[in-house]
């Protein structure tokens, strides 16, 4: 439990990027053994504040105290020396190097050589203490996301961190992995480590943290002293400044089948293959695909969006048989798609936002004529969408990569919904989004449902799926092991099916 003497104290931290005030006069402290939650909307400045603490960004004003003594942290090396470790939102690992090499980077060797034996011994010791085991000689690219995160935590402990910062660690984890992470974090806190935990999932924050600081527009908007006994909606109000009402999913009146898959199988090209997958989504229905990631969800999304050709089975969109499986064909039949990775397959991060927003339909008459683009039309379209979806950015010509996660997701959604798709397939629609942005996205899905669109939502967050979907199919090792009506499904039941147990649907 927290002791009064702070391990780390930040006072009056201010940091601007050009005109954007990312942090303004932020005060924050962590005691040994304390798990502090850091909350805030997308773009509230959480990551920036932690990057200042970790020495990656230089603050414009303010000071940092370690055990009561002021320190200057100009680099990550300084932060590590002060006992501060950080697990970043996007991991800082070199995929082609081994686990041990990633661990030993920057560690002085023994008589000029890399100290392999010493590294292995420490790795084992840390693994035993907190249940964080890793195979030292695997390349990082062979690790699951959860294991990579484990490596990042071990890396920080390896360097003697007494304060561990975790930036949205659970956004990338499956529910079962979250439990493992939490028990490791609790074990570290019990040994006197301070922990700063960032998450958009308020129930996690309530379960794990001892105290919370809420940021809004770069300032401290409030503090929560007893998260466990504070309701999620109270926290949400602190974050957004207003109430967040969960959208109500009315009864559905499903129409004709919009998307059907019958006996679809794929070859084992990359990742898990599909094995004899059949499903159907009707107009005005939302179908959830639950499952631990890596069980064929990617292949399923790729087949439906025409990126991957199955070697057996048949697919129809709005009653028409898909014959060639090309993105162009399925689009023409009325499919809209929001891919899992917004940055790499969603938008072109180095191009203006406007260009990315018309990309799938760049060849249509609306945006090009006689082989030439119509920049005015493209711009006008983007401007209209930016307004309609409240996408926060300087303008349609902004580089897409400069947008925050929530705004990128809104842009992708705007792009697909503008063309009134008959079928929409989305993967992890609200990963990394704050509750306000997630609500907005959910509402849009329900709108589309009311207008007769068939929607497939692939996700790992069971609570979200239960709230949003009419039916939930569970995938395991490339098959659909069962489909449940969400009205009578429970998280426990779905969780069990995700581990391969046969369902009853």
């Amino acid at each position, binding site marked *: 439990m927290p002791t009064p003497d702070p391990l780390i104290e930040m006072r009056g931290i201010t940091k601007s*990027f050009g005109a954007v005030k990312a942090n303004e006069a932020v005060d924050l402290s962590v005691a040994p053994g304390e798990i502090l939650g850091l909350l805030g909307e997308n773009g509230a400045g959480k990551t920036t504040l932690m990057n200042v603490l*970790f020495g*990656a*960004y*230089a603050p414009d004003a303010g000071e940092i105290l370690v055990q009561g003594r002021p320190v200057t942290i100009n*680099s*990550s*090396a300084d*932060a*590590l*020396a002060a006992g501060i470790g*950080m697990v*970043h939102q996007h*991991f*800082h*690992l*070199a*995929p*082609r*190097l081994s686990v041990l*090499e*990633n661990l*030993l*980077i*920057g*560690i*002085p*060797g023994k008589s*000029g*050589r*890399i100290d392999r034996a010493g590294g292995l011994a420490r790795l084992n010791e840390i693994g035993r203490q907190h249940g964080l085991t890793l195979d030292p000689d695997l390349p990082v690219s062979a690790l699951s996301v959860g294991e990579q995160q484990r490596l990042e935590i071990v*890396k920080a402990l390896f*360097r003697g961190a007494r304060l561990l910062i975790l930036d949205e660690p659970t956004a990338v984890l499956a529910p079962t992995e979250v439990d493992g992470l939490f028990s490791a974090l609790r074990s570290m806190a019990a040994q006197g480590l301070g922990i700063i935990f960032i998450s958009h999932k308020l129930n996690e924050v309530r379960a794990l943290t001892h105290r919370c600081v809420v940021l809004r527009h770069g300032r401290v908007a409030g503090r929560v002293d007893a998260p466990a006994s504070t309701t999620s909606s109270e926290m949400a109000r602190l974050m957004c400044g207003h109430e967040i009402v969960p959208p109500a999913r009315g009864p559905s009146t499903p129409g004709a089948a919009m998307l059907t898959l019958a006996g679809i199988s794929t070859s084992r090209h990359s990742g898990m293959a599909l094995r004899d997958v059949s499903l159907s989504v009707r107009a005005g229905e939302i179908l959830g695909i639950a499952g631990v990631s890596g069980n064929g969800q990617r292949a399923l999304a790729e087949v439906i969006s025409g990126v991957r050709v199955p070697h057996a089975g048949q697919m129809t969109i709005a009653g028409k048989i898909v014959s060639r499986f090309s993105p162009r064909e399925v689009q023409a039949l009325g499919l809209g798609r929001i891919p899992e990775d917004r940055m790499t397959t969603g938008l072109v991060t180095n191009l203006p936002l406007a260009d990315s927003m018309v990309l799938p339909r760049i060849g249509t008459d609306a945006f090009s004529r006689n082989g030439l683009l119509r920049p005015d039309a493209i711009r006008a379209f983007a401007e209209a969408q930016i307004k309609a979806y409240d996408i926060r950015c300087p303008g349609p010509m902004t580089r897409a990569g400069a947008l925050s996660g929530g705004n990128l997701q809104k842009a992708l959604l705007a792009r697909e919904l503008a063309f009134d798709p008959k079928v929409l397939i989305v993967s992890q629609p609200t990963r990394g989004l704050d509750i306000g942005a997630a609500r907005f996205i959910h509402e849009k899905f329900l709108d589309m449902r009311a207008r007769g669109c068939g929607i497939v939502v692939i996700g790992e967050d069971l609570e979200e799926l239960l709230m949003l979907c009419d039916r939930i199919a569970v995938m395991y090792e490339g098959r659909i092991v069962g489909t449940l009506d969400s009205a009578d499904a429970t998280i426990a039941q779905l969780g069990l099916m995700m581990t391969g147990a046969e369902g009853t649907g």
Partner: protein
Amino acid sequence: MNVVLEQIFQVGFLAAIIRIATPLAFATLGEMFSERAGVLNLGIEGIMLLSAMTGFTATSLSGSLWLGVLAAVVTGALMGAVHALFTVALGLSQHVCGIGVTLFSSGLAYFLYRLIFGQQSVPPSIKSFETLPIPVLSDIPVLGPAVFNQFSLVYMAMAAVPLAALVLYRTPWGLSVRMVGENPRAADSAGVSVIATRFQAVILGGALMGLAGAFLSMVQFNAFTFGLVSGRGWVAIALVVFGRWDPWRSAGAALLFAFVDALQLRMQASGLGHIPYEAFLMLPFIFTIVAMAVMSRNAVAPSALLKPFRREER
């Protein structure tokens, strides 16, 4: 054809391969260190020429061969530092800066050479290194005289390969080099200075390119001519890809190239048919292009190659 085959196993032919491979090995290792840290150094061609010039000049003025080698190494390291200053510290385009370094170094080499030696009808030359037979080993038939009766710079190249592998794979510094070339952000957050590590790797690379230049003007030709390097730097860049950024493979690639080049020279000399000699000259380069095309399909460059590191950018 028999004539050709017979010549392959001659002492002279083997020795020629080794001699052609030596500057390529130095240059390739140099480029490899630089690229492993994420910095393409297109300045290599010019750095080799300038180092060849300073090495030659230092020797011909002082009479000391080793002083010449030292001058070449220092020149290479300095030009490496210049390239690093622009590409690492200032984060400018590696292509543009590299070509700039080559043009500048070549120009400077010509200019200084003219300034010091003027225009002479017979180009000045120096007394080169003597070969240094290694006792016992040099008595092995065929292999001995070809491989173990060589110049000290050749032995240095032979030692440089395992040494480079040791440094790159077994030392903390080598790990830092590989890490800043793969994911500089990871290195930075582990407390490693990306800028310093890249500077060091590019400077070390430049020094090795300097050795390559020194070998050309002080061992291979005993003189400095304007066409001295004639594309060997560019070849080294290709060999790094061919060698998949690994010291052993890169050295192997240099040997292979040297083999084709030596073969080509023999074929020219043996006057095979009425084929114009330019056709033979093309051979090693055609070989490089084909080999590159085949090998580079599954070669994976360091992920952060060409990408400048700026901490506060995302």
